[in-house]
């Protein structure tokens, strides 16, 4: 494998229940504000009203009104992209003359899953095709490319809950290998009745606000949102001299090849993904200031992560930010990449929300208060259905 080859991040954008943009999210995180509540946009028959983290309608920018033409997932992706482009000081019009790629992770955004349409279909009505047309128009990466009139490669990554992290790592590879000048990359997912029922059926939805890594953890709370980064080639940076917020230093991914829904108990796939990310980034473990763990709050996920981090990075502080955002599925890795970059810039990480009682079988535990951090880089990891594991490392370029 060739040596480290960092890719510049020049813009960051995100929205989720914690805030309408990155600055607002970081304020919520550091002020330890979180507001999980039962879903407001749909009803269910469950005896328990599982709390979720919804994005309020007011968080969408005025240029993206609800129009029925696009799935909410695509609107979320567009909102985060607008912020990221603004942050990178790009006028979207100027992108049209360049080769700009779009790589976005999702789960809901790729599923032909209109419940209303299907109920009508089943009951023998001949439902109108509007929801299907909306689905066909709303492939997240394609809809972002179309909105901005972009002509580079387009990829929607559907690796379940690691999709956002994978999309970032893959897009960095496009930029490094000259497939595009600029890549808009991240993840987006909306909250739906389908995923809500799905996670409830798997009995991994917590009836209380989510408690990642806590002894009393009972599962996840779902959330929704999007995170997008602007990645730029060296060629474009030289022409434009934009400020560089961070670098994507390394990426690794591997599959447990173990079980459809349960992570491998020994975390073998996660360990391979971490090894590859560390190697490709050229970082040593002391370079890693902190780890943004997947930390969904499910018994299995958190056990595997603590076990693996206890082996691989035993002295590195870590946290889960899902106590602030809920589990945003395909968006999670991208949102957390945005937070990771912002925390590196701030030189501190917030308390891992929802954690208070350590689980005695865990070798290491997340931070319980705001902590100042040291090190040039930070790592964010995602674990997914199907045994996928993905890791990205952000930070300053190191000695080459």
């Amino acid at each position, binding site marked *: 494998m060739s040596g480290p080859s960092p890719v510049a991040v020049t813009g960051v954008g995100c929205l989720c229940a914690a805030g309408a943009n990155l600055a607002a999210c970081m304020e919520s995180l550091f002020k330890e504000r979180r507001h999980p509540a039962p879903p407001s946009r749909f009803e269910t028959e469950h*005896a*328990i009203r599982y709390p979720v983290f919804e994005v309020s309608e007011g968080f969408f920018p005025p240029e993206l009104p609800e129009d029925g033409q696009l799935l909410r997932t695509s609107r979320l992706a567009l909102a985060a992209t607008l912020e990221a482009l603004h942050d990178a000081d790009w006028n979207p019009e100027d992108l049209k003359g360049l080769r700009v790629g779009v790589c976005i992770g999702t789960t809901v955004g790729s599923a032909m899953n209109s419940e209303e349409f299907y109920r009508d279909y089943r009951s023998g009505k001949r439902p109108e095709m509007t929801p299907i047309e909306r689905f066909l128009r709303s492939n997240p990466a394609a809809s972002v490319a179309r909105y901005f009139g972009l002509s580079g490669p387009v990829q929607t990554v559907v690796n379940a809950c690691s999709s956002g992290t994978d999309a970032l790592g893959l897009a960095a590879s496009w930029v490094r290998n000259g497939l595009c000048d600029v890549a808009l990359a991240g993840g987006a997912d909306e909250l739906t009745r389908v995923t809500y029922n799905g996670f409830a*059926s*798997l*009995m991994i939805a917590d009836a209380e606000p989510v408690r990642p890594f806590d002894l009393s953890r*009972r599962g996840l709370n779902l959330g929704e949102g999007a995170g997008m980064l602007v990645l730029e080639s060296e060629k474009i940076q030289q022409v434009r001299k934009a400020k560089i917020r961070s670098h994507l230093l390394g990426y690794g991914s591997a599959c447990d090849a173990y*079980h459809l829904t*349960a992570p491998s108990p020994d975390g073998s796939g996660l360990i391979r993904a971490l090894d590859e990310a560390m190697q490709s980034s050229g970082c040593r473990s002391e370079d890693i200031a902190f780890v943004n763990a997947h930390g969904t709050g499910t018994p299995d996920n958190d056990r595997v992560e603590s076990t693996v981090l206890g082996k691989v990075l035993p002295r590195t502080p870590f946290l889960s930010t899902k106590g602030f955002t809920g589990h945003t599925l395909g968006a999670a890795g991208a949102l957390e990449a945005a937070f990771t970059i912002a925390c590196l810039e701030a030189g501190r990480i917030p308390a891992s929300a929802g954690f208070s009682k350590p689980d005695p079988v865990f070798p290491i535990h997340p931070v319980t208060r705001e902590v100042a951090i040291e090190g040039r880089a930070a790592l964010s990891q995602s674990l997914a259905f199907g045994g996928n594991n993905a890791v990205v490392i952000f930070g300053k370029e190191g000695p080459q």
Partner: protein
Amino acid sequence: MAIKEKLKKILVEELNLEDMTAEEIEDSTPLFGEGLGLDSLDAVELVVLIQKHFGIEIQDMEEGREAFESVETLAGFIDERLKG
């Protein structure tokens, strides 16, 4: 149909144990690991099947853990809940 027989039928038909018949399942055969070889995903599917066929809700896997040992323990659990 007795609870045990109904359970065995559900196991074979709804968890698609295509390589065995309901009659081949012993009352005491462990459902998970060695035995029938069910796993964690079957366990949550079984929770749904018990609700669907017997109207019994299991809210928490901890609650079901002991009941899910074998057809015998599960039938006992269902019987108790139906009476309760």
